[in-house]
């Protein structure tokens, strides 16, 4: 990782994840995304006079699962506090959150970097309610949609252990994968069920003192996060080098320009006057309850990755990619169960299939067993990899069985050494110039000869055999 002007960046991430409980955190309104404005709210989540919050137990359960999945200590005793400030999307003029006694603390997750595995600390995870959404248009000005008021959130705060945009991205991908595995959120950045705020400061490499940090809020794609970090890092370094002092403030990222701009100064920010919410009793969890919740969590990404590496001989990188999405990992395992060429299946999946799949989460039109079938065909040398590539396109369209397609179209690879040997000898005889070039040292000239043999076999010749036979033939010359 190269440093800019000798400074390193220090990053902490605050991630807000919407929990996919059926109903909101303090009332029984539904949490479904995309409804008509103000159709999923009630006097409680709209903060009408006389209403009171009642905690949805499932929210606590989901939060505990997220905490356990990230190696946190779960508090036996925690409480909810009021965070007081005025804003039109906050009906009660306070947000019920957790201040000094959060539900989860002292966790971590591991990411893969160029230098190997790195551990990123998680300071805390707490539960809180979401605010509404402000919508602006020229005709009406600013309008408030209260559907999102009271949707349950967990806020996951990382230690300032991240040192690059790539690490930030890896952390977010890993965190997202883990949360998806627990089933407590669908983590869709586009729908706002996963949001990331970036706290960034810089310091001369090798020094210990933290610089003044800025906060960048609501960056809604991994790509924007990376770009914003890169810009802000340079901006802060340039400012410091010019003798300026960094202002502690919130900045917004403009994807169009790739730059960050001042939003509001954190120095003049609110005193939130936190105090324990007197309407809510403390949250008390016994170790037995916590353990029971932990037992409900399925095998997590790192455990699965480890298993793939041990059982199938996959690389750490491939393991990381396949486990980054639970649906993807499930798919891979289903395919791996149908073939003895699991590593091949992984390669086909990662290099060929993934290219053809769009969207945030993994959805594949080819059934897992057909991927397994394809891997077996390649592994058994029935077809070569370029034939496999062609088949994949068709499989994506119709989910046809590759075995059936090979039979129908007679695509089986030609492994007959006698036949191939004959074709190789013919090609060598027909291309004296290429042979001569090869002898002179132009090893690439062999390609022309191979190409000739391939076209005679309509692309079905086994390239490995052809290569071997050709080499032997050329030695004879």
């Amino acid at each position: 990782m190269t440093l800019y002007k000798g400074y390193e960046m220090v990053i902490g991430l605050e991630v807000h994840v919407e929990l996919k409980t059926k109903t909101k955190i303090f009332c029984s309104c539904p949490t479904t995304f995309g409804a008509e404005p103000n159709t999923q709210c009630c006097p409680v989540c709209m903060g009408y006079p006389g209403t009171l919050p009642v905690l949805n137990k499932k929210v606590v359960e989901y939060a505990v699962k997220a905490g356990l999945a990230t190696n946190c200590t779960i508090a036996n005793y925690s409480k909810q506090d009021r965070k007081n400030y005025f804003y039109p999307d906050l009906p009660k003029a306070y947000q019920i959150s957790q201040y000094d006694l959060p539900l989860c603390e002292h966790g971590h997750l591991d990411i893969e970097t160029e230098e190997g595995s790195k551990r990123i600390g998680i300071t805390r995870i707490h539960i809180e309610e979401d605010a509404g959404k402000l919508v602006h248009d020229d005709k009406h000005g600013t309008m408030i949609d209260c559907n999102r008021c009271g949707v349950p959130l967990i806020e996951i705060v990382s230690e300032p252990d991240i040192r690059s945009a790539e690490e930030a991205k890896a952390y977010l991908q890993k965190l997202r994968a883990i949360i998806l595995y627990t089933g407590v959120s669908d983590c869709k950045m586009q729908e706002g069920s996963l949001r990331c705020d970036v706290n960034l400061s810089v310091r001369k490499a090798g020094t210990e003192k933290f610089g003044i940090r800025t906060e960048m809020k609501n960056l809604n794609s991994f790509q924007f996060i990376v770009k914003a970090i890169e810009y802000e890092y340079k901006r802060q370094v340039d400012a410091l080098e010019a003798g300026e002092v960094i202002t502690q403030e919130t900045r917004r990222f403009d994807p169009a320009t790739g730059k960050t701009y001042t939003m509001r100064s954190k120095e003049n920010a609110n005193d939130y006057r936190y105090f324990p919410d007197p309407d809510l009793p403390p949250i008390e969890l016994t170790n037995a309850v916590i353990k029971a919740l932990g037992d409900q969590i399925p095998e997590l990404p790192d455990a699965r990755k480890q298993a793939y590496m041990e059982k199938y001989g996959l690389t750490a990188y491939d393991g990381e990619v396949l486990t980054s999405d639970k649906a993807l990992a499930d798919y891979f395992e289903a395919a791996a169960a149908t073939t003895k060429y699991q590593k091949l299946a992984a390669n086909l999946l990662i290099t060929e299939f993934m290219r053809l799949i769009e969207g945030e989460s993994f959805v594949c039109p080819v059934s897992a067993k057909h991927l397994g079938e394809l891997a077996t065909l390649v592994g058994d040398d029935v077809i070569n990899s370029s034939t496999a590539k062609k088949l994949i396109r068709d499989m994506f369209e119709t989910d046809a069985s590759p075995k059936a397609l090979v039979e129908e179209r007679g695509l089986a690879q030609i492994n007959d050494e006698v036949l191939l040997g004959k074709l190789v000898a013919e090609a060598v005889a027909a291309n004296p110039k290429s042979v001569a070039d090869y002898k002179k040292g132009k090893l690439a000239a062999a390609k022309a000869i191979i190409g000739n043999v391939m076209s005679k076999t309509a692309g079905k010749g086994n390239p490995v055999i052809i290569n071997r036979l050709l080499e032997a033939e050329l030695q004879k010359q």
Partner: protein
Amino acid sequence: MQDFTKMTLAEMSSALQAREISSAELTKAYIASIEKNEPRVGAYVSTDARHALDMAIAVDKRRAAGEALHALAGIPMAIKDNICTKGIRTTCASKMLADYIPPYNAHVVEQLEKAGYVMLGKLNMDEFAMGSTTENSAVKATHNPLDLTRVPGGSSGGSAAAVAALEAAYTLGSDTGGSIRQPAAFCGVVGMKPTYGTVSRYGLVAFASSLDQIGPLTRTVRDNATVLNAIAGHDGRDATSIDRDHGDFSAEIGKGVAGLRIGIPKEFFGEGIAPDVKEAVLNAAKRYEKMGAQLLEVSMPAIDHALAAYYVISSAEASSNLARFDGVRYGYRTEEFEDIAELYKKSRSEGFGAEVKRRIMLGTFALSSGYYDAYYKKALQVRALVRADYDRVLQQCDVILSPVAPTVAYKLGEKSQNPLEMYMGDAYSVPVNVAGIPALALPCGTGEGGMPVGLQLMGKPFSEALLYRVGAALEDDMGGASK
């Protein structure tokens, strides 16, 4: 015709059951009383005679059809205007909610609806329940029916005055620092602040969340127990509501006080208590002694700090609870503004009265960075000490006896310019809320100007039945309800 409005609730219920009177007739009697008395007393913010009569007629129909009805069915009552009534204006006596119509009923209203109640209207109060005289109402001042030049007390001044003036058979009030008990004392009626968590706060516009409770105001102790039976009980919509079988609150009435230990704490009889109040209260204590109770002198040193703790805690919680009144979704919104900050500032400056603003500012300060530990946190610690004092004394005694307030009702305008002096008048009532225990206020004699003096009986959590028993004993001994 017999004046049915002077009957107890039990007598009214019997009369209705025996068809001596219909609910419609009873309701008309109260409507007439309201028409007659309101110009002088001013207990009501709003009345709806037509609606009340409709409710009464519906109950009469059910009764005629032979349906078995609740003890309170068809009996006209009224509700303090900080308790949400669906479709009916609920103002909290504030400009901020002058036209506010709640989209739902409070839990207590739902309970009364199930009982077949008849509602005459909504009652005047100090704005957002902050005050001790009802003079802080943005609507009007209420006058004490026993002496129209005097205050009825607060903040449930309208609730007490309406009962005293026979403008309602019973009323609901709310009590955060004495707001049921003190007006009950000033107007010579009975008021109960139940144990915190006994009556659901769902639908009560919050003042101080950890102190507020809804309770009944009635002419007699037995009536009060009847109403509490109807409104108490667990409500899943209030997370501070206790899940407990309360039993029948009137079950112990009539058992007398022989053998009971009554504590007389010296801190409640110190400096500041008016001699007439002291005399009337101690005379009541002597009556108890004559009836066979044992009087014990006790000391509760933390009580001296309860008032300060109360004002810090209640103001802090209020500053947060009232922040939602911002002119955006409901309530008063200023007419002209350039941006959101101005909308907030002007709506709240114009919508709130002086006392409300005073407490919001005090509360905000007590919670603010750098002051939280010295004020709010400290007040919570004092709270624990107050609770401990009560726990200790209530091991030695069954109930604790004291005055409700240091004086009888004073003149309108007398204390309204001096907030601190007015706060001092809460010194005997606030410790009860701070500790979360129940307390009953009932008349025990008269004082200066012939005004009623209120006796306060305090007990362990969930000891309302015992308080009613002890209160009823005095009421019976003194010849029944006043008037």
